[in-house]
């Protein structure tokens, strides 16, 4: 049998390369109208009155009065309205849609709308905690009471914007009572469920289809549910096809971003210079609604010791509500913030204790059988020692570190170690998602993969087909995998949390085996599989005790930098990575995830600046918000390890998010090494470096 990791041409490359792929804005429906959103221009205010210009025939207003069901975007916490009723809670909050045939007339009408507000005092500080989680492991009270020394540091991380190159958008039509919405989405069934609640509709009155998705990175996880609800309400009112596509500035100003965080860490050090206990306190800014913030917080808290095993822990965190744009899902989902803090902290402890950071890290590096931060178990082999050795060798880490420490020439190297819990946090898969997949074989012996997983560039159309092809021993061309359509595919869950290959792909592999056993040439047959959590996985979401994830992927990033002694501008000189994602279903696809993920992570650490001032996002254009270009990339080298996970298809674990998790601490550590100062904030901008150079 051939090795599944051997790369094939991606099944969707050709249409993308010739410009034929249809993204949402490329779709036209006869008689289609355009919608544009009227937004709040206050951070917090009561709406006193709205004065509309006279609307020409064929132009419409859609607002909360038109919502037939509940005026709420149903996600996890149902706390975001579809349209504001009375009080706006952030700048840019959607109040109504203006809909009509000509885009420029719509824009012109919007400019004539007058909204009278009664301004209220907006809250931008972290004082209003909406969610508080905490848990303990071991006896941290004792550890801190008996400590010889307590080391404390505070870390801070900024916003990060997904900046998928295709902005958000959807197009919809209505037939009788049934709304059909096609859009740039990661999670067709999230939108389906939200629209049902908004319309008070039955299952079969809502149909959600995925158009080709031009990048997402979490940004199209929950946010499209808001657009979907607004569009559905408009469709029910106007009964004509409508398109709602954002322009870049609107997208950057009002869509969800990575949560800024403030992380306080304390370590109890005993008289043998050992870490006896850790206290971690995490504050994240949720913006104006909770949305997915609570889930982001829990992933951050669970990652509080990174790849290290510490016996005694006291962990707590809050989601604070502020009158700013709501934050949400972004590749990594709370882990990048926490892993930055953990990796810096372990180095800062070593510095304070005057011991070699590498020795300290190796001493606490998790081993198979260790207890996780939540008293679960690392059941599967951990091959980090081997990976660390490889990473140090290909990057010449030790040698460079020593030279750069001595010669003070503004060159530096940093190495991060990290892990990513694969799949939903806690009991999500078993209790909330309950994924269902189907394989339908036709009389023509073609096999149709029926799942809700979205290919947003990560290659899932190719990898899923490879799994089925390999098991059924049929060519890829005999397998069909269309973009999901909720009328046709079962709910296999959202395309998030690095779950798609491990969980959905695992179910698809089982379904393929089932189909193989029952296969009769020329006969139609459909098989299905539903997710069952392995019995030994136990999780209590109230106390945070147990196995937070069924499996973990592991990674190492080494980043080398050079800093201008005059401008403090950071130049990347090299990035080396080693990953254990179990088994790559397609090596080149995983390499693509590796390159793209690490660059997003490194850029989060030194380049990408987004600030909110007085409730408004300051960087709203691609000119102001800088992401890496080809001009910024250094040589990159990546090694993939084989460490098959027994329950994943061919041993595959999660891969998409892992590759982003370690970039920021690796570049921040490299900068520390170069300037010999203590870095506690990302992004490490030239301005911040200048501040550090002045202060000490």
């Amino acid at each position, binding site marked *: 049998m051939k090795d599944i990791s051997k790369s094939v041409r991606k099944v969707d490359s050709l249409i993308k390369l010739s410009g034929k792929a249809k993204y949402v804005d490329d779709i036209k429906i006869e008689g289609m109208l355009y919608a544009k959103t009227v937004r709040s221009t206050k951070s917090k205010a009561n709406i006193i009155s709205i004065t509309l210009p006279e609307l020409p025939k064929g132009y419409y207003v859609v607002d909360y009065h038109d919502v037939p069901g509940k005026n709420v975007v149903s996600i996890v916490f149902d706390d975001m309205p579809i349209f504001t009723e009375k009080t706006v809670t952030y700048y840019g909050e959607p109040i109504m849609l203006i809909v009509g045939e000509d885009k420029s007339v719509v824009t012109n009408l919007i400019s004539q709308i007058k909204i009278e507000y009664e301004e209220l005092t907006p809250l931008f500080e972290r004082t209003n905690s909406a969610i508080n989680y905490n848990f303990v492991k071991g006896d941290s009270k004792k550890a801190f009471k008996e400590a010889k020394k307590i080391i404390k540091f505070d870390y801070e991380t900024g916003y990060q914007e997904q900046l998928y190159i295709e902005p958000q958008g959807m197009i919809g039509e209505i037939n009788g009572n049934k709304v059909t919405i096609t859009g740039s989405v990661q999670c067709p069934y999230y939108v389906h469920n939200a629209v049902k609640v908004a319309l008070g509709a039955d299952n079969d009155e809502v149909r959600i289809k995925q158009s080709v998705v031009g990048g997402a990175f979490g940004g199209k996880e929950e946010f499209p549910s808001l657009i979907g609800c607004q569009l559905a309400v408009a469709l029910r009112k106007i009964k004509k096809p409508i398109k709602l596509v954002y322009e870049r500035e609107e997208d950057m100003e009002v869509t969800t971003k990575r949560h800024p965080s403030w992380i306080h860490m304390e370590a109890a050090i005993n008289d043998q210079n050992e870490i006896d206990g850790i206290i971690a306190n995490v504050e994240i800014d949720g913006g104006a609604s909770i949305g997915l913030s609570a889930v982001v917080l829990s992933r951050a808290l669970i990652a509080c010791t990174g790849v290290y095993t510490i016996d005694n822990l006291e962990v707590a965190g809050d989601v604070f509500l502020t009158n700013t744009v709501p934050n949400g899902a972004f590749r990594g989902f709370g882990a990048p913030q926490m892993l930055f803090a953990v990796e810096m902290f372990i180095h800062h402890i070593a510095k304070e204790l005057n011991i070699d950071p590498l020795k300290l890290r190796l001493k606490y590096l998790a081993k198979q059988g260790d207890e996780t931060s939540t008293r679960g178990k690392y059941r599967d082999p951990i091959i980090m020692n081997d990976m660390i050795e490889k990473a140090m060798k290909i990057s010449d880490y030790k040698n460079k570190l020593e030279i750069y420490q001595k010669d003070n020439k503004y060159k530096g190297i940093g190495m991060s170690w990290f892990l990513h819990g694969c799949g939903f946090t806690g009991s999500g898969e078993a209790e909330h998602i309950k994924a269902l997949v189907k394989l339908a074989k036709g009389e023509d012996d073609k096999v149709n993969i029926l799942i809700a997983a979205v290919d947003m560039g990560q290659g899932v159309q190719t990898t899923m087909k490879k799994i089925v092809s390999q098991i059924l021993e049929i060519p890829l061309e005999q397998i069909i995998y269309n973009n999901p359509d909720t009328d046709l595919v079962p709910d296999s869950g959202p395309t998030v949390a690095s779950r798609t290959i491990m969980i959905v792909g695992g179910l698809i592999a089982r379904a393929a085996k089932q189909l193989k056993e029952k296969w009769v040439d020329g006969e139609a047959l459909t098989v299905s599989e539903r997710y069952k959590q392995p019995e030994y996985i136990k999780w209590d979401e109230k106390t945070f005790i147990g196995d937070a994830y069924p499996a973990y992927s592991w990674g190492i990033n080494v980043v080398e930098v050079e800093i201008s002694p005059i401008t403090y501008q950071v130049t990347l000189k090299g990035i080396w990575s080693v990953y254990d994602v179990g088994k790559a279903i397609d090596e080149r696809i995983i390499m*693509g995830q590796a390159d793209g993920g690490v660059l997003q992570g490194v850029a989060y650490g030194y380049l990408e600046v987004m600030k909110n001032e007085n409730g408004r996002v300051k960087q709203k*254009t*691609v000119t102001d918000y800088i992401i890496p*270009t*080809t001009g910024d*990339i250094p040589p990159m080298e990546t090694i993939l390890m084989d460490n098959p996970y027994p329950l994943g298809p061919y041993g595959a674990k999660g891969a998409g998010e892992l590759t982003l998790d370690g970039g920021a601490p690796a570049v921040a550590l490299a900068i520390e090494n170069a300037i010999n100062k203590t870095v506690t904030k990302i992004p490490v901008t030239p301005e911040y470096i200048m501040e550090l150079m002045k202060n000490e």
Partner: protein
Amino acid sequence: MSKIKFTLNNKEVEIEESPTARLLDILRENFGLTGVKEGCGEGECGACAVLINDKVINSCIVPLGTVEGKNIVTIEGFSKTKKHQILRNSFEEEGAVQCGFCTPGMIIASESLLNKNPHPSDEEIKIGLSGNLCRCTGYNMIVKAVKSASKKGDGLW
């Protein structure tokens, strides 16, 4: 409204539109050339790149009136050429396509680069593509694809 004539994908065309209309909108709306993408609308991301008289230009910042008499090639036109076939193959082989939204612009920029410099070094490729943003790939595979195309298509550019 003005009558404006130009060559589009090897065909003479004439349309009556406002000379200040964005070329991007004209290509997408009037001619249905949706391979030309809007990523930022301010000339920064390169998703809307087209060739105007063989130069790579972001069509979102080109007023229609300025293309009178010029020769415009979009991804749709370029995809019928032998050069596209070479580039397409290289992009596929190197895994240079993920979400694909930047891809038509990347291909157009690559064509423009190879026209000027048929055998670019890695550094020259990076400079040549620095006006095209990609958020998925980390660019390495794209740079490799262009390099590989320059070898495979030796003599074409």
